[in-house]
């Protein structure tokens, strides 16, 4: 299956789980800003959980399909449409030559969406990863965001990919990305460089995400967090989700494209699920921080990872389900409203998440 880019959208890049292993030579990790959304998208399709996909930012692309395969859109709700009709997200959707994938725009529920395809987006790996790192023009599709006229290939689809069609991520296993939830922080590594009042201010104030919020980091604006002395340290590693507070006292949360090292004090580091939760917010939205222990963070993150293994199990069960008598199978959100005719040819009306569809089919000759 290939995808041709008719319109690239605001910022559409190829990302996987990142370029790990090279931070010691200064190579930023990059990778999906909402890693679990990418993982689930891939799991829905039977791909390796780290297969490359398109990370779509607010205003999505228009893509034309050639060939056959499955796609799954996860993460933010950016108005996914298939052939001009709203299409289901968090679900393995069959596409074929001539189909057009579009995004009608953000709904206020998230900033970044992931378009996964059977077999993953096929671009040459650079230093072990297909993630795009824009600042060094490296990885992904020619090291840059997509442009109109680009054509993306995909890898070998998993065996039995056709049987995966229609599989949907159970609602309770989708990551919660509540834009109002406080972001949970494990204190350290330089919490001791802030005054007790500074620490109290940080955890008891509301911060606004400024316009300087991108894949590298989110700058916040709000009450000043006071240092005990100088805000500079001898440069050390910047962990994913680290909250840097330079001399001006305003937090900067460091994300996927962060520089590997830096010389500013870090009051704490977000727990893993809340890194994605912040990455799904946009400038102008608010953030509050809540101090939790290392042990609490371990429990929270473990619970998230368990959801992923439940998605994996549900997908395996779906793929190995017994043969169906009818060509379409309803789940809780689907209603069949007209009689199914004998296999061979027929039609039905279907309501999926409130949108009506008329589906017709016929058996192709052997």
């Amino acid at each position, binding site marked *: 299956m290939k995808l041709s880019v008719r319109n690239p959208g605001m910022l559409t890049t190829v990302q996987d789980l990142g370029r790990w292993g090279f931070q*010691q030579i200064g190579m930023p990790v990059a990778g999906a800003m909402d890693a679990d959304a990418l993982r689930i998208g891939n799991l829905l399709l039977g791909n390796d959980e780290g297969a490359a996909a398109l990370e779509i930012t607010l205003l999505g692309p228009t893509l034309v399909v050639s060939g056959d395969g499955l796609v799954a859109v996860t993460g933010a709700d950016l108005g996914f449409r298939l052939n001009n009709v709203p299409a289901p997200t968090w679900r393995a959707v069959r596409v074929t030559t001539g189909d057009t994938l579009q995004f009608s725009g953000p709904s206020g529920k998230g900033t970044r969406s992931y378009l996964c395809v059977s077999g993953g987006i096929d671009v040459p790996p650079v230093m072990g990863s297909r993630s795009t790192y824009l600042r060094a023009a490296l990885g992904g599709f020619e090291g840059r965001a997509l442009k109109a006229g680009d054509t993306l290939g995909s890898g070998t689809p998993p065996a039995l990919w056709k049987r995966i069609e229609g599989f949907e991520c159970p609602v309770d296993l989708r990551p919660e990305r509540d834009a109002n939830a406080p972001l949970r922080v494990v204190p*350290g590594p330089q919490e001791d460089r802030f005054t007790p009042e500074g620490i109290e201010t940080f955890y008891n104030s509301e911060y606004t995400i400024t316009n300087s919020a991108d894949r590298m980091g989110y700058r916040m604006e709000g009450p000043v967090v006071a240092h005990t002395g100088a805000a500079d340290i001898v440069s050390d590693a910047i962990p994913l989700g680290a909250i840097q507070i330079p001399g001006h006292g305003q937090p900067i949360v460091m994300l996927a494209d962060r520089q590997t090292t830096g010389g500013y004090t870090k009051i704490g580091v977000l727990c893993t699920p809340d890194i994605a939760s912040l990455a799904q917010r946009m400038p102008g939205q608010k953030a509050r921080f809540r101090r939790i222990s290392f042990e609490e963070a371990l429990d929270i993150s473990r619970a998230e990872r368990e959801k992923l293994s439940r998605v994996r199990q549900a997908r395996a069960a779906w793929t190995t389900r017994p043969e169906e008598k009818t060509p379409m199978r309803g789940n809780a959100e689907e209603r069949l409203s007209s009689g199914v005719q004998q296999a061979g040819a027929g039609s039905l009306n279907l309501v999926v998440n409130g949108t009506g569809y008329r589906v017709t089919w016929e058996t192709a000759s052997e």
Partner: protein
Amino acid sequence: MTEAVYPRLLHAGDTCVVVEFGDTIDMAVNSRMQALKERLSRSGLSCIRELIPTYRSVAVYFDPDAVDPKRFLNMLEEMSRSEGTSSAERTTGVVIPVCYGGEFGPDMANVAAHTGLTEDEIVRRHAGTDCYCYMLGFTPGFAYLGGMDETLATPRLKEPREKIPTGSVGVAGKQTGIYPIESPGGWQLIGRTPLRMFDPRRSAPTVIEAGMWVRFRPVDHAEYDRLAALANKGDVVVERFTRESRPEERKRT
């Protein structure tokens, strides 16, 4: 504030922890950090995802599914306490050819004005003292070098440039460095190297590695062009040298 006791473990989220050996830029501290980093690299522990060594600490990313994180932290604490400095010889040096001044060193006049030295004297001093690479970071292949002749120290530009060409050699305060990729920056540019300091297609993507010595060698424009042509073809011609370790470092090992 209470006095910190080193080495110490610092939390850095739920998948990373930092082991810190000190608060200064110091070869002895750096060597103790390197020793732990080497022990961890050799340990073959599958729960270690990535190690990021810096001047005085190493960040350890771990896989919380592959190990009980609390047990791993205890083990790390124990390993970090065992005495030792790096076993690495730290005698490897790499020569970086630099074409100084002219179009490649647009800020040479600033450095001359600030230091009161002539251009020739700046080149002689910059190329006359070996620098030590403590760590890489910031952007791909950027080497944090220590040991530049301090008489060359010049503050950063008041207005940073938006685009600094790949290979530019600059001075910022007491530091010197080489821009491995085109990036914005405020360093005073005094020359340019024809070497490709960073190339992801090479098996060793960077010319300089942490723990190496760096010696700058002045070259003229013709030699620069010759080396640049080789570099553009993808040939890696890097001259190396061996340097005695510093007396104070030998004492400790």
